[in-house]
Structure formats: C-alpha cells, structure tokens
C-alpha cells in the first residue's frame, strides 16, 4: 500500500461521509427544516428519528437533490456540493430508497433498475449487461431477485431489494432509506439490516429514517433526533439510551401514556361477529377467515397484526364496504344485510386507517367534512336536503371541543395539518355518539398532543359504555388501551391475550406466527 493510498484511507475514516450544516427549507406557510445539522460517519449505519412532520423526509430529499435548501451547506466526503436534481446526487454517489416504492409495476426488475441509466447505446437498449450486473450485486449483498421478473409479481421484501439494487447499480456509496421497515415483517427487517451491514462492511454508508425505536437502537451506530425542523440530539452510543429516552427526546416532553386500567366491562355484547369470511377476489386464501369475536359495552378490543393480514378487510366487512359471509350484529340486531349507510345510522362510528384516502374529502370545507358519513342524519341532513346551518354549527362545536386548529368552518380541509385532520375525523365520529366505534390506526401520523387527546376520547367513551374495536400497529397503544387483545395472522384470529400480562415481544411473536395458541 503506497503512502498516498494510506492517507486517503485515513482521510476516509476521519472525514464524515455526509455533513449538513444549518439546513433551512421553507414551504408556503411552513418551515420544514429550521437549521438542521447532521454528521454521518463513513461506513456507519446512521438513524434519523423524529415525529411525523419533524422534517426528516424533507431533509433527506434535500440531500438527494429533490429540492434545494433555502439556506445551509451540504458536504459529501469533505467536498461542499450543491445538488440541483437527483442526477447530481447520484453522480456524487448518493442513492435514495423512498418510503413509497418508486417502482413501475408493469416493468421487469431490470427495467426498473436501469431506468435513467440504461446500458447500451441511445439506439439500442442492452439488457444483458444489466442482468449480469444485477445477479452479481445480488450475490455480493444477499439481494437475490430475478432480473426478468415483473415487479407486480414481487412481494414487499423483494420490492425493497429492487429499490436497494437500483441504488447500488448506480454505484452509490451513501444510501438513504426513508422508513424502509414500515411495510416489512420482522424476518424481512432482519434480512434488510443484514444486507445493510454487508454494505457498510464494504465501505458504504447508510442513513435510515425510522419510527420504530427498538429497531433503531438495535441496528444503528449513531442516531440523530429531529424535532420541529431542528436537530435536538446526537447519540453516538445507542446502547446508552432506552427507547423511552429517545421518544422523549423526539417529543420534547413527557410522553403520554395510553394506560387505562380500571372501569368495568359490561357483559352486554354490543358488536358480535360470527364466522365472518371475506374471500379473495383474485383467488387463493381468504383475506379474512372465520373470524368470530364479541365486543361488549364499555370494552376496547384491540387487534394486533402485521399490516396486510386481513385487518383492513375485516373493518371493511363490518362496515359493509366489501362482501363477506357469516353474520355481524350490532346491539343484538343483525346488520349483515344492511348497506353501509344503514349500518352507520345504527350507531357504527368509523375512524378510517387512512384519513386522506377514506376519512376525508380534502377539497371539501370543514363543515362539509363534518357531515361525511352522517349526511343523512340530523344535524346534517333534513329529508332530501343538506342542512347547511346545522352542519356549520356542529362543525364549530367539533372545532371547539376537540381543539381542531383551523381558521374556520369554511376553510378547505387540505389546509389543515395531519393531526388536526385526524382530530376532525375523531370529533366527527364521537359527536354522533356511536354505540360501536371501529378505530383503525386512530393516532397514526399525528403529533403527541393529538395522540393524547384521541386516547382520552376513546378512554372516556369507554367509560360511558361505547364498544370499541381498535386496530393499530402501535403495540404500546394496543396494550395500553385494550381490555382484550386479539392477534390476526393471514386473515385468522390466532390468539386472544390479556393486555395486562402480554409484552410487546410476546405480541410480536404471535403476530409473525412464531408462537401460536390453540383457540
């Protein structure tokens, strides 16, 4: 080894792979990044954590050249750079795996990988070298995917591998992954971090964003915490902190706790599902299989499960949005043959898992959204007419009671933040005084204040006899709020647990089918 090579090798270890200084990025009405600093050691796995809306994704997009920062400097391997497009970032050896897969489903794996950087001449695409290179990369890093497979035929884990291959194919030495584990099951998560370790062992640097603090503490070499667009913590030794420390750093205050022990569960059954099955329209295993469960008055029944194991379909079946066999009854009345509208009129409240997709009409005004799902009932509807005055009045009440922050009932809903949108949804459902509430991920993507408020609402309504079916990916929320916990796996209820005794780790093993319980 010559002396210059040794010097440059030494330089590589001393000089950080990435250094962001005082990054400011403004959007109309919001400052997404307000002086963020980030230093990433070369060859390390670096985690970035923060609440929703803290500005993590904005920061990573800045680093990837998706947009330019308004202030601040970016340094890559000691060189100051300015990126005007992802092409510049790619050229500087930076690659990004987005939260939502950036894959064309109708393209093959190799087509997706080479897009924008095609082998061959302008007049002729040459797939052969691409296939060979993909096989090579796959072997090297344990990222095996058939280059000629159609992406629409791949599972989530494979798709993620394709995303990483895309980045590696371009020779990236610095990888950014935005919430890479959000859609993966635990085994896939392990495989992912295994591959990432493989990469760093060969000199690459990995930055990833995550919400799952256990995972961050387990896999990251260093952690940067971002809150309200600012860097609020740098942790160089993750083994010295607990998830709770980290969470409080993210939030900047004591964490609310979802605990609800006490109170009594009545023995009057309010929501009863008997042998509910939802067949798969594409053939194959049913999406929901023979689910039987009862939720009593004043009871919260939690449903745990890795996403995509039939929870959404179960919820949609209860609401009558998709066809199901078996029977469903509310307050002793069989609702199996009723339409969605009739079911909701009977007192079925519904907090949808994706408020923007299912829970709200974003261009509608706030009063219009306050009527959503209840447009047939007072105070929103009167005969065939819409009672505009009544709806406005009710919307104003919701804004007041549930601390929805907005300029007024006539403001379009898309102008509100996620947390306020969710408070509007929750407020809308709760003011109708439902006897049964179906709450799908009620606190997903909301700030801590909104989360505490929503937990309070569910708790108080429980006291007053409401039956709640709670579906959530947040295990702490599930354990804290539920009176009983069910686990769904591949469309079936596979475990019935007592939240007072179960730990998140236990729950995880049931969710992935590692442990099973005879029903």
């Amino acid at each position, binding site marked *: 080894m010559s002396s210059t090579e040794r010097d440059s090798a030494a330089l590589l270890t001393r000089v950080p792979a990435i250094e962001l200084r005082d990054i400011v990025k403004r959007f109309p009405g919001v400052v997404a990044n307000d002086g963020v600093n980030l230093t990433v050691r070369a060859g390390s796995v670096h985690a970035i954590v923060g609440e929703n809306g803290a500005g993590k994704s904005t920061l990573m997009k800045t680093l990837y050249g*998706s*947009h330019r920062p308004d202030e601040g400097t970016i340094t890559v391997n000691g060189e100051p750079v300015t990126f005007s*497009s*992802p*092409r510049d970032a*790619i050229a500087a050896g930076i690659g*990004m795996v*987005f939260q*939502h*897969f*950036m*894959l*064309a*489903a*109708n*393209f093959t794996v190799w*087509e*997706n990988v*080479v*897009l*924008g*950087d*095609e082998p*061959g001449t*302008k*007049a*002729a*695409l040459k797939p052969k070298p691409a296939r060979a290179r993909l096989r090579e990369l796959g072997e090297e890093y344990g990222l095996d995917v058939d280059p000629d497979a159609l992406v629409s*035929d791949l*599972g*989530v*884990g494979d*798709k993620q591998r394709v995303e990483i291959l*895309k980045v590696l194919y371009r020779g990236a030495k610095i990888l950014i992954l935005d919430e890479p584990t*959000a*859609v993966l099951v635990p085994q896939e998560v392990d495989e992912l971090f295994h591959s990432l370790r493989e990469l760093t062992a060969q000199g690459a640097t990995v930055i990833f964003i995550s919400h799952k603090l256990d995972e961050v503490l387990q896999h990251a070499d260093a952690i940067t915490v971002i809150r309200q667009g600012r860097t609020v913590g740098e942790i160089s030794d993750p083994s010295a902190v607990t998830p709770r420390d980290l969470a409080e750093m993210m939030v900047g205050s004591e964490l609310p706790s979802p605990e609800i022990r006490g109170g009594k569960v009545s023995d009057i059954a309010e929501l009863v599902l008997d042998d509910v099955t939802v067949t*798969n329209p*594409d*053939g*194959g*295993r049913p*999406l929901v299989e023979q689910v039987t469960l009862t939720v009593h008055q004043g009871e919260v029944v939690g449903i745990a499960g*890795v*996403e*995509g194991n039939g929870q*959404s379909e179960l919820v949609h079946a209860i609401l009558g949005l998709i066809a199901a066999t078996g029977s469903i009854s509310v307050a002793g009345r069989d609702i199996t043959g009723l339409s969605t509208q009739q079911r909701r009129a009977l007192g079925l409240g519904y907090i949808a898992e*994706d408020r923007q*997709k299912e829970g709200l009409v974003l261009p509608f005004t706030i009063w219009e959204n306050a009527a959503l799902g209840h447009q047939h009932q007072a105070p929103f509807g009167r005969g065939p007419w819409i009672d505009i005055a009544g709806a406005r009045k009710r919307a104003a009440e919701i804004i007041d009671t549930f601390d929805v922050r907005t300029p007024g009932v006539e403001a379009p809903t898309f102008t509100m933040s996620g947390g306020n949108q969710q408070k509007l949804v929750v407020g809308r459902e709760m003011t109708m005084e439902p006897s049964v509430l179906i709450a799908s991920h009620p606190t997903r993507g909301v700030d801590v204040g909104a989360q505490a408020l929503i937990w309070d609402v569910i708790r108080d309504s429980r006291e007053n006899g409401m039956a709640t079916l709670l579906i959530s990916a947040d295990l702490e929320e599930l354990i804290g709020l539920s009176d009983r916990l069910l686990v769904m796996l591949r469309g079936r209820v596979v475990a019935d647990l007592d939240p007072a005794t179960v730990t998140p780790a236990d729950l995880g093993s049931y969710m992935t089918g590692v442990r099973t319980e005879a029903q």
Partner: protein
Amino acid sequence: MTATIDSTASDVREPGAESTWRKARWMPLAVALGAMAILSLTRLLADNDDLTSSGTFGVALRVAAPIGLAGLSGLVAERSGTINIGLDGMMVMGTIFAGWWGWQYGPWMALLGGIIGGMAGGMVMSLATTTFGVNHIVAGVAINIIAPGTARFMAGELFTDVQGGSITTSPGNTGAIGAFTVPFLSGGDLFGWTSPDILGWLEDRGWFLIADVAALAKGLTTAVSWDVVLTIAIFFGIAYLLWHTPLGLRLRSAGERPAAADSLGVSVHTMRHIGMGLSGALAGMGGAVLVLFANRYQENQVAGRGFLGLATMIFGNWMPLGTAAGAGLFGYAQGITLRTNPGDLVSALILAAGISLLVMSIWMVVERRWQTMGFMSVFTAVTFWAFFAASEPNNQLVFVTPYVVTLIAVSVGAQRLRPPAEEGIPWFKGMQ
C-alpha cells in the same frame, strides 16, 4: 399506498403465470385464423368471393392505415402518460396542412405537412396537460373543438379563391405518391421484368381457408401506396422505440410510474412533451394519409377516425401489434363499403359477425362465464336482428361495426385490459 396493498400479495404469486403467458403467445394467431375461417365459411355460404378477395383486403389496408396511425398516436401518448382524446383534432390539423402542402408541393410534402400540423396540435395540448396540469380529458375536448374551427378558417383563406378549391375542399394534390408490389409473391416488377404471382394463383383456387389467407397476403403486398408502406414501417419503428431503446423505457416510465422516473433524474415533463409531440405527429400523418387517399383535403374528412383510433388502441390493449390488428379489423369493415357491390358484402359481413358472436357465446357457456355470455347473447341477437331487419343492407350499420366491436371487446375483456398505470394524471415535481 401501493405498499399496503401489496403486502397481502407478498405470497400470492400468480399460479401458472408462465403457462398463461405461453398461451398468450399463440392466442392472437389462433384468433386470427379462427376469424379467417369464419369469413371463409361465410364466403362459401353467401357465395360471395369478394368477401375475402385480395382486392377487398387491399382496400381494407388502405382504409386501415389512417386508423392505425391514430391508434398508434393514442398509444404513444398514453404510454407516456397523457390520455389523448384530442388526437381527433390533431388529425384534422393534419388534413388541412396536408391538403395545403399537397396542393402546393406534392404528395410527400403533404405527408410532412400533416405531420407538422398534427405535431403542433400535440404540442399545444401538451402545454396544457403537462406544463399546466389541465385535466387530460378537458384539454382533449378543447383541442377537438378548436381544430375543426382552425381548419375551416385556414381552408377559407387558402382554397376559396382557387380553381377547384372551396372552403370545404382543397384543389387537389399535385402528383401521386405511387405504389409498390412485392415481386414473386404478388407479381411485382423487378427491373422491368414481371415476376410470377404466387399468391394470386393460390387465391384463384378458392380452397377453404387457404385461398382466403393467400388473398389476405396478396392484398397486403399488391399495389401498396408508399404512404401505407411507410405506415407499416412506422408501426415497427414505434414498437422498437418503445421497447428496445433507452428513450422508450423512459417514455413508458412517465406513464407507468412518473415518480420513479423523476427519482432517477428522468424528467417526466420532457418525456410527456416528447410523447405528445410524437403522438400529434402520428395523428397528423394519419390525417395526411386520408388526404393522399382522397387526393385532396375535404372538410370532415377525419369523421371521428381519431376516436376510432383510440378504440383500436384499447382493442389492442395498448400494444402496437394489437392496435394494428384492431385497425385491420375496422379497416376491413369500412373498406368493404368501398367495393363494387357493398350491399351484398355488408350483409355477408353482418352474418359473419353474427356467427362469430354465436361461437363466442357458446364458448362462454363452456367456460361457465354466465355474465359475459349474457352480454354476448344480447349482442348476437342484435346483430342477427340487424341482418334480417334491414330491408336493403345498410351502410350505417357497417359504420357502427367498429364501435360495437370495441364496446364488446372492452365489456368482455375490461378486466384483462391493462392501460398504463398512471396515465391521465397531471404530474408535478414532488408528487409520489
């Protein structure tokens, strides 16, 4: 969004996906042969050789060319992400420019003029849809309203005070574009020597199916106008461009997943502009081919062929080969009305359509797809009613054939049709 949906699909890989794919390879050929067999059968039943004569197929090809170009125009636009309802208007722009330049400079310049006129229309639409994010249907409708007005204004200015011209017609092209016959197969000339006509000999034998296939081949290789030859070449060219060049991959990515393209530094807007420019050019050329056929510009010459082109594109499942097949089918249906005894041919064709529908209905019974069968039976009944009800076979019914066929195709096969995943959605930087 995609992620949560896909997570259920992680372990449900399509069973026997490969075998379906293999089946798909010979399916088009089988369907084509089956259709030819039914035509051949009808020819014998109705005792009308002109139903499958090389002359009929030749006319069909001539009529199919502009429809095919329109279909290809739609295909390129939609593959690159823009739904081009406005291509009918772009064809109109093509006809007026082709009529103008054909009259002034001859047939080849008519083609070029048509291409330029159509391309201008495509760029205007792309400005609205791509740059400004106007809803694609809205912009397309606007183009379709503007183009005929512009054409009429131009025709009024260009042709009214000219001998042989008026506000509705151009004076006629100067010179003809010429035609080409393939030697040996169809008796084309080779350096002044007339080669043998093998296909013609086969056609004259009148054997079931063989004669008909030979006639088809002869029709496609005899006295083919050069603009039609060019059209066929363009079909291959576009297929190659889209599936075998880097530019093609990028164009398609703008229709399938623009965010992915953008994240890899491919400019979605550039791709969509290119796609629309190309789409407009193809539509305009389609207009020019119409002008070359009629030898002049005529008002309303396009007569909805742009929409017919969209129909062929859908019929062909957004693939060039399928689009060509759709254009051929529709060209055939329209082409027979231009033959010497259209009345007899039309009723024979309606009979053939009825037989085909009956065959398909029976097939659906075998497959136990009752709902589809129901739809097919209704169409079958209507077709036979039309066959018997028309006192004298009626051109209007042939005029509607392509549209009915497309409606049947989309209602029977809508589940199998696969348009580009994210076409028709205005895209701006930062969208996911």
